[in-house]
């Protein structure tokens, strides 16, 4: 089990190797809620950057879809943690995700035009793949509250849709 979680976390955080050495334990519900919420916030921030920078109609439409969906899911997540009286707890995984996203945003900020569009969409594919992998192998199996688990499962289906949508847009940019 230990190895499996470590591997899943490593997959989740392959972009930033340092913090997960200490985070090998199975995450708790308050940590899972924090990770899932953070992952959503980070994709909303990426979308906002794309809406500002991109001139490509398809890319902007995709970014708006991401912003709208992740806001809706995060609102549901907030309602649920309030109802369950769970206080989301910051943790090494959330921090590593945030750090990686900040680095990606800085990288993207230097690009424009087609180069920006391509880099943004490719990162969206990779990011959704990464988060979906973590949901499937780590966050959903670790969640103990049934309602939290169910929300994560629906979230996974939505984000798998995003991954396919991003792949479709990436194909159109080629």
């Amino acid at each position: 089990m230990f190895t499996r979680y470590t591997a899943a976390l490593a997959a989740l955080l392959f972009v930033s190797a340092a913090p997960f050495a200490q985070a090998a334990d199975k995450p708790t519900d308050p940590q899972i809620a924090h990770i899932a919420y953070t992952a959503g916030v980070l994709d909303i921030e990426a979308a906002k950057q794309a809406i500002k920078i991109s001139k490509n109609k398809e890319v902007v439409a995709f970014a708006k879809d991401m912003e709208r969906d992740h806001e809706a899911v995060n609102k549901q997540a907030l309602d649920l943690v309030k109802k369950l009286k769970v206080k989301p707890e910051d943790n090494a995984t959330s921090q590593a995700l945030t750090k990686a996203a900040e680095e990606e945003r800085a990288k993207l900020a230097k690009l424009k035009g087609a180069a920006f569009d391509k880099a943004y969409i490719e990162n969206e594919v990779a990011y959704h793949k990464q988060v979906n992998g973590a949901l499937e192998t780590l966050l959903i199996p670790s969640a103990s509250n049934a309602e939290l688990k169910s929300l994560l499962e629906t979230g996974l289906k939505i984000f798998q849709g995003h991954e396919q949508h991003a792949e479709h847009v990436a194909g159109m940019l080629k």
Partner: protein
Amino acid sequence: MKAGVSIGLPWLASLALMTAPAAAATIEVTIDKLVFSPATVEAKVGDTIEWVNKDVVAHTATVKGGWEVMIQPKKSANLTLQAAGSVDYFCRFHPNMKGHVNVAP
């Protein structure tokens, strides 16, 4: 983008007049947790499909190169079938969602 958002009674009445004597049916398709249910609809020209979206995110029912209906979160939207044929549809926002409509003449 938006097709047939409201399904008022006067509209139903006029539809009934237009298509008499065979009354057109309204077929409900529920969207829950990114699943179209039923996944396959059997209909005839003049019937209406009403999608009821129980999710918190918007979906579309899109036929590649054909019609598209946008279904807002917690809302319904409908489409009256104009042409016979068999079509696959999907959600443009979440292409992992798929449905099928068989329209008899």
